[in-house]
């Protein structure tokens, strides 16, 4: 077991001082995101979403679209960013309404639970 490059610590960028940032106030979206991760709810929601999207065939359709896009561009000319940029809007549009409603309901009830807010 080889410990790796300790000298890297010298070149590491300094830990940012949050209070010096121009945007010191975290946005609501960030706050919610952090709360979701801290409580472990994000993992659960991800699992639920994964299950629903597989059930309704969304994943298979999107896979087919990615394949078609990759074939069109050529395997060697494609990067992750290209795929993400192109496929994301399509994927977002293809999510069925009931899945969106269910997830929103879950998030809403999570945010309304008293244990969350000090």
């Amino acid at each position, binding site marked *: 077991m080889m410990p*790796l490059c300790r000298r*890297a*610590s010298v070149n590491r960028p300094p830990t*940012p001082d949050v209070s010096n940032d121009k945007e010191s106030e975290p946005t609501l979206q*960030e706050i919610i995101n952090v709360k979701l991760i801290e409580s472990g709810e994000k993992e659960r929601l991800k*699992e639920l979403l*994964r299950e629903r999207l597989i059930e309704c065939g969304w994943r298979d359709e999107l896979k087919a679209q990615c394949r078609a896009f990759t074939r069109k561009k050529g395997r060697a000319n494609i990067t*992750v960013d290209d795929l993400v940029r192109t496929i994301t809007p399509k994927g977002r549009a293809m999510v*069925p309404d009931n899945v969106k*409603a269910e997830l929103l309901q879950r998030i809403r009830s999570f945010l309304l639970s008293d244990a969350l807010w000090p």
Partner: protein
Amino acid sequence: MGSKHKLRWAAEGYKPCQHLLAYRLKHGAESFRVLQKCLRAGGTPGRACIKREEKEVPRCASCGRAHGRLYACLLCATIGCWSPPEAPHARLHAQTAPGHDLAVDVDRAELFCCACSDQVYDPDFDRAVIGAQSAPLLGGTAKSYEKEHPINGKDAADCVKRRRGAEYKPWVPTPGEQLALRQGSTPLKEDESLPSGLRGLNNLGNTCFMNSVLQALLHTPPLRNYFLSDRHNRAICQRRAPHLCLGCDMDTIFSAAFSGERTPYSPAQFLYSWWRHAANLAGYEQQDAHEFFISTVDGIHANSGTTSPRARHSQGGRAGDVDCRCIVHRVFSGLLRSDVTCTVCGFTSTTYDPCVDISLDLEPDIGTEKLFVDPVLNGESGGRSSRAASSAFSASTLLGCLDRFTRPERLGANEKFFCQRCQTRQESIKQMSVRKLPLVLCFHIKRFEHSSTRNTSRKVDRYVQFPFFLDMLPYLSSSIVRSRHGNRLLSVDSEETGLPSMHSPFSSEFELFAVVTHSGKLDSGHYVCFLRLSGRWYKCDDAWVTRVSEDVVRASQGYMLYYVQKTLSYKASDLLPSSTPDILDKNGKHGGYSCVSGLPSMVNGV
């Protein structure tokens, strides 16, 4: 080491980028193995991610961002965010710190080259990911490591995690297995002229009710697929003797029917098991086919689910539960919605009831026999408007019966319903609709009327015309509720917001595949089953199976109708010609067969 991997890469047509090669040269492939300890399996199997404390939120070292794609540098574990075109901090890190080009996606455990701005692949990396995923199975020594070296930008040993699940290896039988296959099996007799699974069932003494329903079940596509793919194996089923397991007996019948043998089969074992399950119906009397169907479904539900641990859990659910995972409920169970509206204040109370079939009433005889609607015209069209042409709520068609089933019904004065808003009993209106459609829809036409006043039963012989293709869209809760409110979105009922998109247009279309008919009188009648196989119709009259034309089926007196969702039937059955067959059954709809003498009374099914 290097050449072996170059070979492996070349075999897959992949060229690693120069940065990856440089990294490997400098730190060696073993460096990836160290990173294995920093990985853990993700939520779903086959996924891995970087380990973190329970409440720890990975953030970009430069901007503190916590969402989107985050990459952890392989060498120093600095986390950078990646959101082109603005501020890809991960790339900045690679530029400022030479040699730190490679990073790992924090949530997905994918190797990324920040200099090339793209994902790269390495077999040693993959191996580490797989190793990390199987670590928990072996006792998980990696967990302790996590406590000592949490990743948060400080001096953490970088671990390359290998992702990807186990490699797929196609199964090739060993010579020993091949021998076992040869010795333990017999080849099916190929008979191309007849569809597979078509076999007569011997009448064991007024058992035509059982034979008809069994024939329908034998060719219910999801049920047939389940048993033929050995999902219920009677050799390993734990409920075997001395307990009875109707699932095992069904498995026996499926094996016998699809074995290729065309001589009639005697389902004696199943009959005996069913007698033990439904002791009150045992005996050689003629029974009601619908009652047999319900009790068989119940029996398979109760006695099944022992060959898989997950199914064992379903036995706690009550019978007919929509969430029950046993095969018969997955196939037949649907959900009915009942709305009771107070006529005074308009408050509606909604209840949901699971069901395995839909029993339809026939309207009392009002002389509608004269309106024998042309089957070709009326058969394929849905919608209520076309049927309004015939008498209102004429029950001589299946669609008419469904209209009747879902119409708003005024409950009588002696059936006042307690309204929660008025806090008193009020007259109310009740309306039924279908909330969730099953894979296979079974309609039961209530032909047997039992009058409690006169203590007599009688059979309604009226012909009911049924379509070969059925669209249940107008009878779904979404349609019914929407039409009740005149297409307005007034309701605050949260369940209704999900309804319109719940059923795509395709999942409400059904096609007919089996018809159980009854001919004769209440106490001396005979059941016959018509099956549609490979686009052709066959009449299964106990041990006699003959091919018939569509018209014979249309003209028959339907008692139980089985429809399967169109998306489940194979395309092949649509391509075969369903025109005039070679052997026409000219004997008329009620074949000349009668039951074994003895003529006991028939139990009504209402």
